[in-house]
């Protein structure tokens, strides 16, 4: 609300992180005096070019790859679109089949939908009820004409970690190209592309205390991608447009810090995460953890607090100074409930009631204690308002009759439906 003295407890780091002051410092000169276009042959240009190439070395060092395997982008969405479109268009003579999962980020899912219109065939493999894809199911989906497989490293909503290395082996054996969206994973999970065995990997600066509008795409040597931007020959003809020098410099610094602090910070956050989940599920009745409890990002807590709607919960929490997010249809521009929660085999009421807390470097145990002081009150109020009682093992909607005559695209008691 408007209480200016209220301390803010920010728990939406999966959406965006604050800029690390060390990153800001290193970016500063490139916003002012070091303004040269890296394409220039004179001193200002050469200095900007050097800054980019140094950043590239840093990123390649963290990923354990060659510098010419890094393409700087404007973020996660551009990285995913460039990877998927780029490979699809470069290999369409070989085949037109692409395999992915039903919990991918919209940057992947919407790109695949666009490719479908170009007559590519898309197979989306369902994840298991714990939010993790079974590599055997990926293998079963592969066909002779499969050119590309895309599976995210860690899910942005429920934080589940996918068995990327295992899937990479299967895809390689099959002779297809493997892409992973690592936007949420960077900072928390190992990024060595040789160990992971991925061919393309996408990262995003603003998820790891770097600047917005920054990112990188790893493209393994030998993998061709067709550009999606046309213009100059920047980034080895893979990404036209004057390089965003401050963002690139900031991205590399943020990635370096994240990788240096990863183990310590992950261990700290895992402890906080488990403490938070335990208190949530013990102290607020009928609160269900979404996604696997162990194979999940150290900073991700996602629960469905049954019978109450997520947006109302968030507005109440905001008034107490707490920032978090929900998979409720009410908050999405498209008014669609979270496809990730639905993919777990839960009815839409679970998505409507889902709350994501994503912790960060500033999060302390005291912050969690504060949330646990306020949240139960909010739940109590909203449950009093709610007319429904969703079953804890529900696989279908609680009150399909309320939607009669609305051309329900659902089967009342089966698992797949959409309201």
């Amino acid at each position, binding site marked *: *609300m*408007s209480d*200016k003295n209220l301390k*803010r407890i920010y728990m939406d780091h999966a959406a965006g992180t604050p800029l690390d002051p060390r990153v800001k410092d290193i970016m500063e000169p490139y916003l002012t005096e070091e303004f040269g276009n890296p394409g220039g042959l004179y001193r200002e240009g050469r200095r900007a070019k050097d800054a980019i190439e140094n950043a590239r070395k840093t990123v390649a060092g963290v990923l354990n790859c060659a510098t010419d395997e890094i393409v700087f982008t404007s973020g996660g969405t551009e990285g995913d679109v460039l990877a998927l479109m780029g490979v699809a268009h470069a290999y369409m003579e070989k085949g037109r089949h692409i395999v992915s999962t039903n919990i991918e980020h919209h940057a992947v899912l919407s790109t695949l939908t666009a490719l479908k219109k170009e007559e590519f065939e898309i197979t989306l493999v369902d994840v298991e009820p714990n939010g993790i894809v079974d590599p055997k199911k990926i293998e079963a989906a592969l066909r002779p004409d499969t050119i590309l497989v895309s599976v995210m490293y860690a899910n942005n909503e429920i934080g589940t970690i996918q068995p990327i290395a295992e899937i990479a082996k299967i895809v390689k054996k099959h002779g297809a190209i493997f892409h992973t969206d690592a936007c949420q994973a960077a900072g928390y999970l190992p990024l060595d592309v040789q160990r992971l065995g991925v061919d393309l990997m996408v990262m995003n600066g603003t998820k790891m205390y770097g600047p917005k509008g920054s990112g990188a795409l790893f493209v393994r040597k030998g993998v061709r991608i067709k550009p999606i931007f046309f213009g100059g020959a920047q980034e080895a003809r893979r990404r036209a447009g004057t390089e965003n020098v401050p963002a690139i410099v900031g991205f590399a610094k943020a990635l370096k810090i994240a990788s240096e602090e990863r183990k310590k910070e992950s261990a700290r956050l895992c402890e906080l995460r488990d403490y938070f989940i335990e208190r949530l599920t013990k102290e607020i009745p009928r609160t269900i953890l979404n996604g696997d409890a162990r194979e999940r990002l150290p900073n991700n807590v996602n629960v469905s607090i049954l*019978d*109450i*709607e*997520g*947006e*109302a919960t968030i*507005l*109440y929490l905001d*008034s107490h100074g707490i*920032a978090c997010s929900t998979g*409720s*249809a*009410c*908050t999405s*521009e498209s*008014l669609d*409930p979270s496809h990730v929660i639905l993919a777990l085999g839960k009815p*839409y*009421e679970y998505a*409507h009631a889902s709350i994501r807390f994503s912790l960060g470097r500033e999060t302390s145990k005291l912050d969690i204690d504060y949330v646990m002081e306020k949240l139960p009150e909010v739940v109590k109020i909203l449950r*009093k*308002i*709610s*007319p*429904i009682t969703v079953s804890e093992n529900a696989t279908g909607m609680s*009150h*399909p*009759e*309320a*939607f*009669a*005559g*609305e*051309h*329900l695209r*659902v*089967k*009342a*008691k089966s698992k797949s439906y959409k*309201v």
Partner: protein
Amino acid sequence: MSIDVINQYTGEKWYYSDIVKDHFFKPRNLLLDAPEENNFDASGMVGSPACGDMMNMWVKIDRESERIKDLKWKTFGCGSAIAATSMYSVMLTENGGLTLAEALKVKPQHIMERLGGLPNRKIHCSVLADKAFHKTANNYFRKTGQYERIVVEGARVVDDRLNITDKDIEEAVLEGAQTLEEVQNKLKVGVGLSLSALTEIEQLVRFYSEKYYG
């Protein structure tokens, strides 16, 4: 640190207007406990096809004057659904209550006006309150035998004496009725009907059973 969101339509801080905020944090006419029998004359539950919110409404109506003496509600809905329904409940019950005929003329845009606006993609939330009341009014008309006053938008009447529509059949099936007999028990439909109407209802029962449970 203050990170208030600015409403792009009104320029106000916070996502919603001050009136919306007030009704969201202090909703009027909420039913906080289970409804007691005899306390209300009719009720209705609806869902929003736009976002999945659900709304349950109860009313008490003075038989003689047809004024709304009490209106209570519950919702599984977002901030604007809560605020819009709260405002709607005030509009229908203030100053001694509107008559049923007057209340049925209150439109979602009237709720919006009183609220000082809602963001564009939240307008369907005010529609939900209106829809819940229309269903509750129909429930009242059915309970009091005033079948001719039942109005169901976008539905086809299959029993003109009781004003029962295909939507009613769909709802009965969704509530669990799977045979003609079970639907008849729920709706009292088909009593003394011609054979052709009965056949049509039977067909609808089969159609919806197949659609949702097949």
